[in-house]
């Protein structure tokens, strides 16, 4: 029994290592290309790794840098935004993203979001979805144990304390579940997208017939409200909405 567990643990630990052996090599190779000045080559490798499903804060950050250097500002912003979702408190990402954004043609008077919404998102991104989920489960079990103590203990003082602790643990567990869900929706189902076409027109209706409302340039971040065929309804940072061709943007 103990042997079987040990084997399983070894397998679990070594599995990602074996799979990403060549991926790590390619990652290092891309870093070398970047250092030697072949930015588009490095960017291609980073993007390939991303599309194969590899994720890490450094990968996304480096990809953003490579795209920025190779002149693809929109992709650079896209990857910086992705990296920011994984490391919301990272200074370098913020700094580079700010520089990349300063090269975007479109400027908006952004409507600031409510502070607690921002804090909640920030908190949810501090650790991964699964960490929040595991913490929520643990907290739920703790709350159940405390509830059991409350329900079976006969002494009055201990009962009161265990009651409040159980209630707190239950609330914490609920908060952690919502953080996990928020984290998941931000990282895996983000509604925001970056315009990749150098110029694209926003219309009042999906299709090429709607009247023209605005013109967007590459690098602008928008929020996708709904999708209808090839056309997405996007919300601009200043609150305006319009229909834009979906192949002209990439979701964060």
């Amino acid at each position: 029994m103990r042997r079987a567990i040990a084997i399983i643990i070894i397998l679990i630990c070594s599995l990602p290592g074996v799979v990403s052996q060549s991926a790590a090599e390619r990652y290092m190779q891309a870093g070398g290309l970047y250092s030697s000045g072949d930015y588009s080559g490095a960017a291609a490798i980073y993007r390939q790794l991303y599309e194969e499903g590899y994720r890490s804060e450094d990968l996304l950050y480096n990809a953003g840098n490579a795209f920025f250097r190779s002149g693809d500002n929109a992709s650079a912003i896209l990857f910086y935004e992705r990296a920011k979702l994984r490391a919301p408190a990272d200074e370098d990402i913020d700094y580079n993203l700010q520089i990349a954004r300063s090269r975007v043609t479109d400027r908006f008077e952004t409507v600031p979001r409510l502070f607690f919404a921002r804090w909640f998102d920030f908190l949810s991104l501090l650790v991964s979805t699964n960490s929040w989920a595991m913490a929520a489960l643990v907290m739920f079990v703790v709350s159940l144990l405390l509830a059991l103590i409350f329900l079976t203990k006969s002494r009055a003082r201990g009962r009161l304390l265990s009651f409040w602790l159980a209630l707190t643990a239950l609330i914490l567990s609920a908060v952690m579940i919502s953080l996990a869900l928020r984290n998941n929706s931000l990282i895996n189902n983000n509604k925001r997208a970056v315009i990749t076409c150098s110029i694209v027109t926003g219309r009042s209706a999906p299709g090429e017939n709607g009247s023209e409302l605005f013109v967007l340039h590459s690098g602008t971040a928008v929020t996708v409200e709904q999708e209808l065929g090839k056309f997405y309804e996007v919300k601009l940072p200043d609150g305006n909405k319009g229909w834009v061709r979906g192949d002209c943007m990439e979701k964060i």
Partner: protein
Amino acid sequence: MASMKRYILILFNLLAALALNAQEVNLTVDAPERAAAGERFRIVYTVNATGGQFSPPAFDPSFSVSGPQQSTSRNVQWINGEMSSVSTTTLIYYVVATMPGRYTIPAASFESKNVTVSAPAREIEIVAGGAAASQSQGQVQSQGQSQGVSQASGAQAADGGTDVSLRLHVSTREVYIGQPVSATLKLYTRVNLSGINELKYPDFKGFLREDLETPELRSLETEVIDGVQYGTGVLQRFLLYPQISGEIRIDPVQMTAMVQQRTSMRDPFFDDPFFDSFFSGVSTVPRSVSSLPVTIRVKPLPEPRPADFHGAVGSFTLSSDLSKSEVEVNDAIDLTISIKGSGNLNLSGEPGINFPQGIEKYDPEVTVRSSGTAAGSKTFKYLLIPRNTGSFEIPPVSYTVFDPQQQKYVTLRSEGYSITVTGSGDQAEVAAPVYVPGEDVKYLGQDIRFIRSGNGSLTLVRQPLVKTTYYWLWFVLALFVASVVLLLRREQLRRNADLTGSRNRKAARTARRRLAKAKALLGSGMTEQANSELSKALWGYLADKLSMPQSQITRENCHTGMRARKVDEGLITEFDSIISVTEYSQYAPRTEGESPAALLERASLLIGKLDNVLD
């Protein structure tokens, strides 16, 4: 002079009117075969008659014509007592043609006393630029030789449209910013000039102009260009330092030349130097002359510029000198940095020297020695005053200049020095503290930060737990387990409670049963067993009523239990006494006094009373 000449001419005209002479009327035209576009040339019509009507030719519309300037002269001569008089009318047109090409000046006619004469049509070629100047006929005389000797050919005043010109010569037409261009403004003339007025320079936009010392123009030098002799003279030399890059145009230099021009025709009679200068009217005509614009291509200095580049462009050498290396505190030392070579010395900035703390530095005394051309030297003399004792290092000065020949930045280095400062400590203490002002970090630009090294700790994206069913099943499972545990515990508690309750309810009954058994035993004479049964009945009753296990039944526990249940102290004493009697009787069977039957009665009464209280 001029008024006197006019007086004499009038006198001669009056004399000539007396003797009319039927001479043949003749109209001649004098025009150059070629002229430069944009330059003024003259067309002169001469008729040997006065009065009459002159019909000018129809000039090409593209010509801009001014004039005619008309002058009349009359000569009277006596030969062998016979008087003959010649009167001449001269009409001068000043023409400027702008478009190159071949043009025809149509015939002009003169009508006088029913006689009409005409001058022939003339062909004229207008050429672009100043090419005509070298080919047009004429003679150049240097101003120095021209005094009193007029060799002008023909009857007309020697003066052409391109006879005076001004040129701006530049040493090079392609330079770097800051690289000096030496420019020379030169005058070319084929006619006599009496002077130059109003030399007007353009504003040299994009350049910094430095005038060089130029000797005043007193005499012209003879120079032959394309076989034509010109009198030339340098008006001004200067250096131009370009300040901006691009194709920079220097606008024309303008001046007014005072041209000496003879207005009367030469006469054989008065053909000697005195009369020539006396009668042939030499008048001074102002003529505006301008040079051609010059375009200079100024190249920007290559980027990035080194940090220690201070604007010096040219080929330089750097040298330094320290007046003394061992010095007392508060004694001055001179550090001299000199830059020698050719280039824009005036615009070369001060080298940046990091003097050690403890040495006070004053602003340098700057001396520029430039000798006509751009070669020279610039000296920075720093006055240094050590305020602390010790040994100080003055680092080598590095000064980067741009060398246009090599087309790259060249860093010049001087040697470093070490200074030993001696002196008493008191002096050093007195010295003012050295104030070192802080300097903000200079931000040269903004760029993204470098990529992260390391293996990147790549992970494959996984299905998030919140999207899996088993994750949520864990919650259900936990809840289920907790519920089961709770239910089991509850059941256990309930059961325990039930057990106590039944013992409680049955306590009195069990006790009475035991008492009845004791009574039966007593009846059959077994007093000891009866007593034992009696004590069992009492202990068992209390154990059941106080929910205590049999093992914990002691006198003290029973007392505590009964007092907690507010049992009367009297009953407790009664209980004690009965138990004492039973225990006593167990070890000493034959007791006197109280009979066992009475004891049984007391125990029965006690249980009845306790049952009321302990219910």
